[in-house]
């Protein structure tokens, strides 16, 4: 009960932030009802997906300060579990999604235990390595469709199918995801003020001090890693139902892992709104750059060049992200 109350308790946030958040929520709620293009709606769905990924990453990467660049493997586990269970045994999303979470979290414990003995660069590269190992296995494993991947054929179902999350119109996906999005925020809000959340921030600051306060640093990291994994896996499951065609190269590539970390970093790692701000800026930017420039003959790659330049400018000029700017302005005002 107390946990639930804490999840809804935003009282430590400035009133201005909450007003803006409420305004954005209202905008997101009504967005599909406005006369917007299908492309805009699809972009918004991507925005939700990546802000959720980013929120998950934010627990271990932002609050915990562990540079995890291997989240794509859990996108893969979630997406593949849901797809395989659906096309082979017709098990609907709401059952396959928790199974995916269990598998992903189990895997995260198995590799998390040795992984968190590493620090700094070693840790970051090791997370990439584990993710690539899983991707390589999936690329040859016939049971999961190998490199061709798997497809969910929507013809076999009668949309709108709320049990299997098979819809014809994106607006259904939009609202289902919107609910996930709100739950994700509430969970993150609970997490950051939970015992583990506070302990994690102490760990990020100084591991020796954290240990002196009775915190089992290794175990706390593994637990948080599992929480981050669960977020990613749930959204991975959803992602499979949404795009209906998955292959290792798309769902499990390093680019996805990096993009996930980038959301949180751009918005501000270790802050409640950071990943949402990050995804809100980066996803529309990426998708519209591609729309405008990606298809132009002779300009292939131009969109990604601009995107790369943006990443570089952020990491050089504002490594603490948009939220870093907000906090700096606020602290200056106070004094």
């Amino acid at each position, binding site marked *: 009960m107390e946990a639930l109350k804490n999840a809804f308790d935003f009282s430590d946030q400035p009133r201005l932030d909450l007003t803006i958040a409420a305004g954005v929520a209202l905008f997101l709620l009504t967005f599909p009802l406005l006369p917007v293009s299908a492309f805009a709606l699809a972009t918004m769905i991507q925005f939700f997906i990546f802000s959720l990924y980013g929120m998950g990453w934010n627990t271990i990467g932002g609050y915990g300060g562990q*540079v995890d660049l291997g989240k794509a493997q859990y996108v893969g586990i979630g997406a593949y579990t849901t797809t395989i269970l659906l096309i082979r045994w017709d098990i609907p999303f709401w059952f396959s999604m928790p199974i995916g979470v269990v598998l992903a979290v189990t895997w995260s414990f198995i590799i998390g235990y040795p992984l968190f003995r590493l620090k700094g660069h070693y840790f970051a590269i090791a997370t*990439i*390595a584990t993710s690539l*190992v899983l991707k390589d296995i999936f*690329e040859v494993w016939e049971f999961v469709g190998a490199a061709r991947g798997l497809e969910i054929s929507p013809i076999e179902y009668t949309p709108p199918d709320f049990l299997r999350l098979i819809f014809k119109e994106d607006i259904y996906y939009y609202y289902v995801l919107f609910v996930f999005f709100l739950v994700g925020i509430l969970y993150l809000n609970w997490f950051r003020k939970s015992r583990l959340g506070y302990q994690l921030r102490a760990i990020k600051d100084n591991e020796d001090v954290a240990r002196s306060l009775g915190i089992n640093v290794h175990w706390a990291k593994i637990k948080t890693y599992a929480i981050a994994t669960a977020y990613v896996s749930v959204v991975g499951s959803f992602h499979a139902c949404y795009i209906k065609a998955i292959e290792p190269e798309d769902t499990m590539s390093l680019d996805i892992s*990096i993009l996930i970390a980038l959301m949180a970093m751009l918005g501000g790692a270790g802050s409640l709104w950071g990943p949402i701000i990050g995804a809100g800026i980066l996803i529309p930017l990426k998708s519209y750059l591609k729309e405008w420039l990606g298809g132009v003959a002779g300009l292939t*790659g*131009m969109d990604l060049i601009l995107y790369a330049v943006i990443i570089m400018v952020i*990491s050089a000029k504002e490594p*603490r992200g948009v939220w870093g700017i907000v906090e700096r302005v606020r602290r200056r005002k106070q004094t």
Partner: protein
Amino acid sequence: MEILASSIVAGLLFGMVLALVALGLTIIFGVMDIINFAHGEFLMFGMYTALLTSQALGIDPLLTLPLAALVGFLLGIVCYRGFITYILRGPMIAQLLGTFGLMLLLRNIALLVFGSEDRAVHQGLLVDKSFEMGLGIIVPATKLAGAGLSVVAFIGVWLLMTKTRMGKALTATALNPQGARYMGISTEKMNALAWGIGGASVTVAGALIVNFWPVNPYVGLLFTMIAFAIVALGGFGSVPGAFAAALVVGLITEIPGFWDFLTYTLEMDWMYDVPMTSFKYMWIYVAYFIIMVVRPRGLFGWKH
């Protein structure tokens, strides 16, 4: 037996080339404690440099090595002065993502300029020639030359680092930046130099690799990861360690060959069914992971 012997030879030869690939990364890491995601993209530019100049001038790709080195040196310095110096003081995540941005930038510039198709060297003095080494081992001449020249280049850079004034200053900066500063060595200059030398050695490696490996704008990531693994196994910042680790990684890439050997020797039916070739590079990551966990300082590490 032939399979085993040729796998070992092929692995060691490839390992020698990989040593040169990893050399630049380990120098850069040793001097300034930063991981460069764009390392493989430098290699890719080396490959394109060799391929395109040799085609344009109608000469053998191996003759373009000095040009490739120059391109790499300039590219390294431009990247350092124009970008890396600004992220050095930032948090680690900003460094990682920053160099990832650099990687995307270089990759997509290549895509824009060179297009996405695979290109390979079809003409040259050594192309399609091979050597019998006895024991039934046949080695393509391009790989043999690549390995030999890699070792020469590796030793050259190693001598440059240990015997010349400039190299010693660089090594001093790696060991103790503050002390080096007191001796009047400019850290900024040394960092730029490390990027120059690091860039040059990896583009030369690229120019060698392109003789037996087709190039496209996406080729870099695999080599970046291989270089990470080598540098980690050898101990971050250790040059001799990188060479030894590269040979190990070279042998790891030949695991499918060893597997075939075992399959034929043991005549186990199930072993035929394992698509080991598809896992060729996975073993590098597995090895990295296991060695890091068991021996976090790397196999031959000297710097923490």
